[in-house]
């Protein structure tokens, strides 16, 4: 058999995914396909782990034992999702001679980003509910789109993750409904939380394309890593949640938001995309403190990893 050139292999690869074929970790893949996957999946994995931090703050303060058990279960699930995704990323990194330690190093130095929502504060119990309902709701929309990704190991991780995210959304809905049906103070707390999270929720999907899709998105769509644009996903989020927010008698901090039936799309006020850039580059309200906490926890657990690997240290 004649050795194929890189371009021939790439053409065969594209033909395969064009026809719905799936790629496994040990299949041949173009270098930039691997790079795009590593970037996306490691960012997703680290976001799961960083996402557990704002919620874990509410574990000791949850109002009832049942709520405490439920939010503990959710935090545990999120760390589990991080583990699934980091395993997928590690298998992609292995041929490059890199591993999980490199990913953590990249997180600590700011080279590896995590979702904007996890740079934000969660000052009240209503935030615990809104995170579960709307932040997880937003994540469900992007993750459901990715179930059909051309990279099979990512799809398999996402099937497990989406199944659990449904409970997280219900856990959030349950908290939100209890507050919506509660005292005037509880309703006010819920309204404040929705108002606080709205810009971050819009930012979650990334900047709109305005007719020109970024090279990054374009490449991921050509490689069938994703199938919808940022704006399409944000519109799907509005479809699912805006009416429900109104049904609870809540308002949004955007008086202009409306659905245009003839256009079949939502018109809304853009969040401050410069602020978005600031947040994801590590200048959000909690960016530094959450990263410091992650770093501290990693350092403090070093002795556990050493003990498991039998890397004994000698006292001098």
């Amino acid at each position, binding site marked *: 058999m004649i050795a194929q050139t890189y371009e021939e292999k790439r053409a065969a690869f594209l033909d395969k995914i064009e026809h719905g074929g799936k790629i496994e970790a040990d299949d041949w893949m173009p270098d930039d396909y691997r790079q795009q996957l590593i970037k996306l999946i490691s960012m997703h994995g680290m976001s799961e782990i960083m996402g557990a931090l704002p919620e874990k703050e509410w574990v000791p303060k949850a109002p009832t034992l049942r709520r405490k058990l439920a939010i503990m279960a959710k935090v545990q699930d999120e760390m589990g999702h991080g583990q699934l995704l980091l395993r997928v990323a590690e298998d992609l990194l292995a041929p490059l001679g890199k591993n999980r330690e490199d990913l953590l190093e990249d997180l600590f130095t700011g080279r590896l980003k995590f979702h904007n929502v996890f740079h934000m504060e969660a000052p009240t119990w209503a935030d615990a509910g809104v995170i579960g309902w709307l932040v997880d709701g937003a994540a469900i929309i992007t993750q459901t789109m990715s179930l059909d990704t051309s990279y099979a190991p990512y799809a398999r991780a996402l099937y497990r993750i989406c199944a659990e995210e449904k409970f997280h959304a219900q*856990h959030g809905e349950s908290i939100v409904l209890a507050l919506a049906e509660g005292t005037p103070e509880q309703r006010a707390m819920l309204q404040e939380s929705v108002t606080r999270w709205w810009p971050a929720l819009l930012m979650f999907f990334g900047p709109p394309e305005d007719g020109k899709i970024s090279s990054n998105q374009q490449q991921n769509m050509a490689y069938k890593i994703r199938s919808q644009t940022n704006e399409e996903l944000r519109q799907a989020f509005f479809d699912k949640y805006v009416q429900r927010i109104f049904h609870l008698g809540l308002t949004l901090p955007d008086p202009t938001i409306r659905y245009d039936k003839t256009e079949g799309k939502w018109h809304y006020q853009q969040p401050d995309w410069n602020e978005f850039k600031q947040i994801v580059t590590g200048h959000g309200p909690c960016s530094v403190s959450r990263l410091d906490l992650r770093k501290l926890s990693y350092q403090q657990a070093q002795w556990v990893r050493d003990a498991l690997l039998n890397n004994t240290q000698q006292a001098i």
Partner: protein
Amino acid sequence: MSEQTNSKQTFDVYEVFSQRTHTSSFAHQFSLLAPNHEVAMTMARENFLRRDAVVNIWVVKRDDIYVCPPEERQYLERLDNKAYRETKGYGDLQSKWRAHRERYEQNQTNNQ
């Protein structure tokens, strides 16, 4: 030249797993005896995968699998106290959402 065979040499047990689609889990098929991984793979296809199409196969030497010891299996049983992890823990949500929607729509009509 000796015609004597080494009668002490035995086959190993291999467990066979296969995957129906790229998004499904690997499912255990059965086990077989083989002298090495390559032969086990060939025999796995002949023995267990003659009909259903699969996208991938694993053969694993049974000795390499650490199995939950029989006396520990009794602790695998689940206690029925984790409703917050299950759908049944959230059975009231749908009716609540419906009530809120109806109240909202009623208010909209009244305001018109």
